[in-house]
């Protein structure tokens, strides 16, 4: 509701500014009303999820183009130029009538054109599956009977696939066969309104005897600059709950910090945004009941690191390890790092499109700008108005000349050479 009120209010201001721009006698007032109109249009861009364009509108249109207009208006003194009577008296009524007709036709076309029947297109939800079932080999992943990924081995995840919103049952099968290893409950994957990309991760955990597939929503939207979003999922069934502890330094027991406490199996926790290169060297999962029982240390910096603009999912699962005659389940942390999806209309997404697919028009328009700059310089160049020396006549005052002539006996004015190049001394007056 507030959106509609804002739209109507700013729309009225924009139209009023445009009308006043047309009616104003003073060109400077018209330029200022046009700036108000541009500011209203920038506000509309913000309402339409185009923040980059809103800033560019203010910077380029209101900040550069209108300033150039104002410079030229002041330079030419155009605000003083009045409007003379038109050549054709019938021009004004005809223009008004034609404009009204045009507006009527366009209005009918817009209202009858049923633009919004299709409704706003939202992004399809993304789905990926992580294989963390303890003792199963590579699996194929099926969602509602359709294969989503093939040959996913332990610790790997399929890539994010867009799926139509709806209810899904994720199942894992042996590759190449129809034998179903695990089935998930029917979960609804809904798309979201607007521009956010909803992503879901289905985590298959447990052991081959009792596998469990849990679908969790995963936030992969853009994060603040140079930080990462870390989500932690506990898929380890051996214990009731785990803690994630940061053993900052291995020797000092006083600077241990509990990052997550009491995370039961099957639950998810989203950590607050971590700046890039936060060291997770000292992080470890421990048993919530017994702090001495360290399940897994994330001390391999090549595998566990926080990179910028990523969304990371850490899954604590169990990996089956055969040592000797026993098969043990060893806890392991699976990191899944995805690049955060840039928001619609933001500078990153515009840049991703502009500098890959539309590089050629971008360069052509840059050339156009250069040509326009050179054209503007050439058009406004003036020949310099320095008077030429040839046109300057030597000016001698007449009374002085007459007095000298009376003394020397010659007519000084007539004898004075006009050109400034020195003459050969043929007619030199007597006495210099």
């Amino acid at each position, binding site marked *: 509701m507030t959106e*509609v009120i804002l739209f109507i209010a700013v*729309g009225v201001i*924009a*139209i009023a500014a*445009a009308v006043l*721009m*047309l009616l104003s006698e003073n*060109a400077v007032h*018209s*330029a200022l009303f046009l700036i108000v*109109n541009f500011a209203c*249009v920038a506000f*509309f*861009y913000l309402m*339409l*999820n*185009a923040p980059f*364009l809103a800033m*560019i*509108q203010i910077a*380029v*249109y209101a900040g*550069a*183009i209108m300033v*150039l*207009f104002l410079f*030229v*208006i002041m*330079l*030419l003194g*155009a605000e003083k*130029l009045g*409007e*003379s009577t*038109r*050549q054709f008296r019938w021009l004004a009524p005809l*223009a008004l009538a*034609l*404009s009204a007709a*045009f*507006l009527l036709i366009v209005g009918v076309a*817009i*209202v009858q054109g049923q*633009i*919004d029947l299709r409704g*706003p*297109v*939202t992004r399809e939800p993304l789905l990926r599956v992580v294989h963390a079932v303890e003792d199963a080999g590579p699996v194929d992943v099926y969602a509602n009977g359709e294969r989503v990924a093939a040959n996913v081995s332990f610790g790997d995840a399929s890539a994010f696939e867009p799926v139509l919103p709806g209810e899904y049952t994720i199942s894992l099968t042996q590759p190449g066969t129809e034998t179903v290893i695990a089935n998930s409950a029917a979960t609804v994957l809904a798309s979201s309104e*607007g*521009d956010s990309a909803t992503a879901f991760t289905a985590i298959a955990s447990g052991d081959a005897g009792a596998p469990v597939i849990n679908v969790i929503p995963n936030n992969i939207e853009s994060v603040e600059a140079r930080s990462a979003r870390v989500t932690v999922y506990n898929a380890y069934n051996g214990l009731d709950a785990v803690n994630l502890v940061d053993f900052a330094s291995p020797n000092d027991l006083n600077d241990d910090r509990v990052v997550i406490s009491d995370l039961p199996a099957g639950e998810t926790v989203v950590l607050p945004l971590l700046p890039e290169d936060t060291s997770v060297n000292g992080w470890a999962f421990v048993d919530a009941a017994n702090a001495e029982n360290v399940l897994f240390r994330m001390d391999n910096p090549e595998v566990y690191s926080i990179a910028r603009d990523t969304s990371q999912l850490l899954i604590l699962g169990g990996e089956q390890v055969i040592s000797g005659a026993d098969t043990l389940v060893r806890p392991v942390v699976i990191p899944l790092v995805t690049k955060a999806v840039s928001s619609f209309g933001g500078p990153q*997404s*515009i840049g991703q*499109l502009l500098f890959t697919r539309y590089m050629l028009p971008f360069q052509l*328009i840059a050339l*156009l700008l250069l040509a*326009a*700059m050179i*054209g503007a*310089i050439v*058009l406004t160049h003036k020949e310099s108005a320095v008077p030429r020396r040839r046109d300057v006549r030597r000016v001698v005052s007449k009374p002085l000349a007459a007095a000298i002539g009376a003394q020397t006996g010659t007519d000084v004015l007539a004898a004075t050479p006009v050109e400034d190049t020195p003459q050969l001394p043929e007619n030199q007056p007597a006495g210099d």
Partner: protein
Amino acid sequence: MVQTEAFVMLSAVLFVLGMMGVLLRRNAILVFMSVELMLNAANLALVAFARQWNQLEGHLFVFFVMTVAAAEVAVGLALIVAIFRTKQSINIDELHQMEG
């Protein structure tokens, strides 16, 4: 969410206002500003449809239109300044030297 039709209707109104400015005003700079208004109206329609169909190409096209408008304004105003130097007037009724 405000309907796309509302934005396109507003864009049409602004475009018609700009058109009337081009037809009715005699000052060359005013005509130029009305052309900028029409370009802005077109940009608004482009961004409205880009949101409707969730495609960023609409924003890119607006980017290009803005750039071309800036280039056009630079050259056009330079022309007006050059004309003003010779004719001392920017009333478009008097600028008809290229007539046959």
